[in-house]
């Protein structure tokens, strides 16, 4: 893959949390953080694609597995669950990390934001 200067790079940020830690959070604190999250999307509108989403809680998850088996619950057993994702448009990894670091929830325990580059250049698979 050619990392041409200015090659559009898209990354997905997956916002995860631990439901047990979420439940233990003071409601006032949670509300304040949520307000800052709203602001975060405003402040970074120029970098955030409209194709992101906040997901409904993990209790609403259903998974279809290999062979077509449908089960209740998320795809894995991990205590961390995905709460939402954003597609961001930034020049390189440093910019992606810098943006992810400003995610307001990170001041709370049990939070993790995964950064994964999107496939934009299919020639890398040739």
């Amino acid at each position, binding site marked *: *893959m*050619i*990392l041409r200067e200015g*090659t559009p790079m898209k990354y997905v940020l997956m916002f995860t949390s631990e439901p047990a830690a979420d439940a233990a959070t003071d409601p006032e604190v949670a509300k304040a953080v949520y307000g800052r999250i709203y602001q975060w999307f405003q402040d970074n509108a120029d970098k955030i694609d409209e194709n992101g989403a906040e997901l409904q809680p993990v209790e609403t998850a259903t998974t279809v597995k290999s062979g077509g088996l449908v089960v209740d619950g998320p795809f894995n057993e991990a205590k961390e669950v995905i709460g939402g994702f954003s597609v961001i448009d930034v*020049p*390189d*990894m440093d910019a992606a*990390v810098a943006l992810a670091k400003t995610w307001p929830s990170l001041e709370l325990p049990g939070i993790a934001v995964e950064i994964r*580059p999107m496939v934009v250049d299919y020639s890398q698979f040739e």
Partner: protein
Amino acid sequence: MTTRSSSDDRLATTLREESGRLVAALYRRFRDFDIAEEAVQGAVVEALTAWRRDGTPDRPAAWLTTAAQRNALDLIRRRGRQEALAARAEPSVERGGTDDRIALLFACCHPALAPEARLALTLRAVIGLTTPQIARAFLVNEQTLAQRIVRAKRKVVSTHIELRVPDPSELPERLGDVLAVVYVMYNEAFVSSTGRTQDRDLGADAVWLADVIATSLPDQAEAWGLAALLTLQHGRSAARFSSDGDLVLLRDQDRGQWDHTAIDRATGMLERAASLRASGPYQLQAAIAACHAEAPSWGETDWLQIVALYGALIRQDSSPVVRLNGAIALAQLGDRQATEALADVDRLADRLDGYHLFHASRAELLRLLDRDDEAAVADRRALELTTNEAERRLLQTRLRRHPLIDGS
């Protein structure tokens, strides 16, 4: 065990001087990190064979550049990356400047890469070591290492880790990652008892790199701190091993064998660091090493100063080994302090019980307190933990340049 010739030294110096520049320059040129790194690695391998056979060329930098560029074009053709040719701005590869070498270093040490990967990539791309050389130096299986490097480069490319010196707000933290790699390079390489990894002196390479970093980022106090620390440790290294290859403790070392020019140079670096008024663990470790380096003998060492420095260091780095070393220094001040030191050390038992030097240190402290029977028990325990002859030899040849029980 190969002994190194002066041509090997010249080879090593040229390779580390040129490798990083070349990788950066080829990357800027063709915008393909993998091709840039492979091309230079290929040139390094070619140079090792050709220069040993035919002697070092008159213009080694030009030789390497030509070889690396030829490899790059070859790789581009073979991989069908013709679009990289379109990215070419000028007909010849420009020598990357010093800044670019540092930018490459920050990319190789990026936090997105696993720590072992950072070390391996830095050694290849920045220092110009080959995979077999790295494998030998760190006792890693060559295949594993090769895979590790492939994965790391893939990550650099797929996530687009750019070659750049981080912004000022990120710089101290990112520099910490870089300095940690250089520190491991110096302290963790397995060397023969003559202090050399056969054909490369990795210790000298680490000292060189620390110096390059400090010179390139002169307002970063910890960069000077690490450069001072490694220069001091390396400056004392000639006295660490006897002619039989046995480890010589600091208290027994012939201080006349120390490189006092290097020690003076290190003192200058420490002063430079201090003037920036931003203390940190490397500066503190360097200051402790400087205390030892300035003392004409073990008996005339300023232990009070060293104890004070360990006090400050432990506040920043409370790892068990640091606390162990701090306790040994404390014990040198007298019986009351030795008793206190022993209590400090005993508190570390649950974490260090499997570490033979923990028991050797306890033995040392017990002897200072005239508790010889208990000292003997501790010594036996230390020996038990190193009864495996191969492990004992390994421990001896693993040149741990952490200040240990003797501060050496």
